[in-house]
């Protein structure tokens, strides 16, 4: 099982490295929006809540352009049958999930320091800030992986993906924004249970997705 997941991952990274479409689009979007926000604000002093909202909006939409790509590409290039023949659904799901987690972590790792630098924000609780960014990224990756698999079979895939992702993401974004805001603001330390909620949310989504994936993936 591990070798098959590794083979799938290696294949996806090799194709992505040669194609660079998802990574380039996501990174370009992240860089441009971060720069645009910092220019638009023009040195104005924003509250931690506004900083937090802006940061997560940039992270969210940067990820949306790249995360669905991993499944949609299999459908658009008509390679999904080839993949299905040589991997169990569970292995396919886990490899795509790991790919999305790595991609989204890279996006978050790019956007967050850029944002902090351009907006001149210094978090009061750096560890909480990093943990929130990591937990939020994990939750968003886990949701988008299974939704990406679902919309890949539909028409108007890309636009549909963002539309149906948003309502499912609301609890994650809400808590991530609140925790990020608390981490920037200082005062009382951010609530650990909110951070645990994000991790538990990811755990539930990944578990349910793992069990349901073969029904989504296999042609009826």
């Amino acid at each position, binding site marked *: 099982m591990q070798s098959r997941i590794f083979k799938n991952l290696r*294949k996806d990274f090799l194709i992505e490295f*040669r*194609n660079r479409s998802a990574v380039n689009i996501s990174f370009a979007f992240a860089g441009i929006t971060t720069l645009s926000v910092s220019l638009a604000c023009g040195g104005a002093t924003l509250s931690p809540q506004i900083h937090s909202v802006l940061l997560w909006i940039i992270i969210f939409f940067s990820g949306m352009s790249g995360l669905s790509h991993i499944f949609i590409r299999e459908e658009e290039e008509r390679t999904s049958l080839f993949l299905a023949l040589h991997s169990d659904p569970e292995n396919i799901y886990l490899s795509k999930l790991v790919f999305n987690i790595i991609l989204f972590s890279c996006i978050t790792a790019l956007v967050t320091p850029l944002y902090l630098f351009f907006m001149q924000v210094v978090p009061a609780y750096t560890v909480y800030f990093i943990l929130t960014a990591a937990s939020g990224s994990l939750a968003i990756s886990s949701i988008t992986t299974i939704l990406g698999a679902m919309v890949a079979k539909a028409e108007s895939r890309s636009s549909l993906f963002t539309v149906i992702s948003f309502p499912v993401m609301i609890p994650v974004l809400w808590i991530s924004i609140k925790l990020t805001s608390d981490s920037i603001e200082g005062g009382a330390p951010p609530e650990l249970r909110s951070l645990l909620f994000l991790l538990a949310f990811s755990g539930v989504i990944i578990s349910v997705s793992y069990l349901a994936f073969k029904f989504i993936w296999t*042609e009826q």
Partner: protein
Amino acid sequence: MHKNYSLHINKISKRFRKQLLFRDISFSAETGESYFITGPNGSGKSTMLQIIAGVQKSTAGEIFFSRGKKEIPAGERFSHFGFTSPAVNPYDMLTAAENIRFASSGVKDEQIDEMLSLFGLYPHRSKHVGLYSSGMKQRVRLIIAMIDSPGILLLDEPSSNLDSAGKDILFSEIERIRKDTVIVIATNEHDEIKLCTKGIDIAEQNL
């Protein structure tokens, strides 16, 4: 090699929404037998092979793979059969060797080179498959299906897009492996039907 594989298809039916594609198809084949499935376009030959391969679900019926007296569980079937079809597209951004390595279960590079040479693709081994012609892609598909020497080989229109040299290679490979393999071919080509020991016309079964 493989002297005891068998494939039993029991009353398989397939329906797309309200349209019946085929109904109650049954047949069986064992190692050393080559079985053809023929029928007019749209009769469901390719769908039948995809159902046997486990990538589509049947509406009714059962499929049994067994090795000796032991049935092979559904989750382990991938490692026992090879499948090729015009619908199976290798990755355009990978080379032929990378596609074969991805699909196979741990074959050595020498074996891959050997198969690439046999099918005349060795000089093109460093090109991405996206740059191949349709005939060359078909050769890659065939190598992928055969590289692991599977006990059961499912071939959907195996000679499509192949030139006469490609067909000769394919037919001689089928002749070479047929004694040790269950071969099921979905085809309307007489050359391919002649390779088989028995078969069905899927449209006649539906009457």
